[in-house]
């Protein structure tokens, strides 16, 4: 519960994994449709990130915020987090993942950012919160979590 991260990785960062994520998204959608990809992201949100999900269900956003800080900093993203009374806003001005994939393959999958949108939705499932994730430009987004 709270600010302690279930997965707090350290050491080097292997950004090429984002390229494999991009390949995976295209592969799954081409063969099984976008619904299958969405369901996999849903499992990531509910099962892999069970600890954050359970915190949100209990009304606690602290681990989510710490997760954002830890990993967006590790990946050297240009971002900030604004914690207000009624909502928390993560503004990503430069997403390292998107730009790394753009360098590798030219144009990331049009569904690349579904990993954020769908995983966020799953994190908030059954919780008193709702996510609003808006893509604001190439490799940029605004993620808002607020009470329903």
């Amino acid at each position, binding site marked *: 519960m709270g600010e302690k991260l*279930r*997965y707090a*990785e350290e*050491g*080097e*960062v*292997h*950004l*090429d*994994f*984002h*390229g*494999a*994520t991009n*390949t*995976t998204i295209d*592969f*799954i959608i081409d*063969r*099984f449709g976008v619904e*299958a990809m969405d*369901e*996999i992201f849903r*499992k*990531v949100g509910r*099962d*892999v*990130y*069970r*600890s954050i999900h359970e915190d949100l269900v209990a009304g606690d956003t602290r681990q989510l915020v710490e997760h954002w800080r830890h*990993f*967006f900093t*590790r*990946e050297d*993203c240009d971002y900030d987090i604004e914690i207000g009374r009624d909502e928390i806003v993560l503004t*990503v001005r430069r*997403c390292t*993942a998107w730009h790394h994939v753009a360098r*590798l393959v030219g144009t990331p999958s049009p569904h690349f950012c579904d*990993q*954020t949108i769908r*995983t966020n939705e799953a994190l908030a499932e059954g919780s008193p919160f709702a996510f609003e994730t808006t893509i604001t430009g190439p490799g940029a987004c605004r993620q808002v979590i607020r009470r329903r």
Partner: protein
Amino acid sequence: MIPSDHFTRFYNEVFKFLESQGEAELEAYFLAISKNQEKHILELIQTKGLAGMEEYWSHIKVEENCDMDIDRYDDHIELRMNVCPSLSKVMDNDAEPMGRYCDHCAGWIGPILDKTGYHLVYDVISRTEPRCVMRVFKDAAKAREAEKDVKLLMGWPGHKV
């Protein structure tokens, strides 16, 4: 963004879905990942051979935080993964690990080595222990001989064991 640190746990979910769709789908995915990886390693192997492999995996050892030893000889290269960060993360996971998670590694490396004329001997040892030994030979006969010593030999698309 799913952090690159958490790719392996995402990968694990993808494997579980594909396994539920059948073996052919899992193999098709290994080949898609293999194709993706060609941009990182194929030219190194084609131009530098075993030295190119050493260069690639030395880079991976650092970036993926592997506890791994790499020894290159005249006729082969040997990678001993003492602690595999990939399987370690999948096992340290609130989601269920896919039982054949280790299969993906030979699944993408094997097809690339087939294309370049090298011979892979991949000893996973155990699918529940985060360690393995990978050897790549120039000579097919030496590879077949080395296969006799392994604990759990791994195959890949187009190369069943």
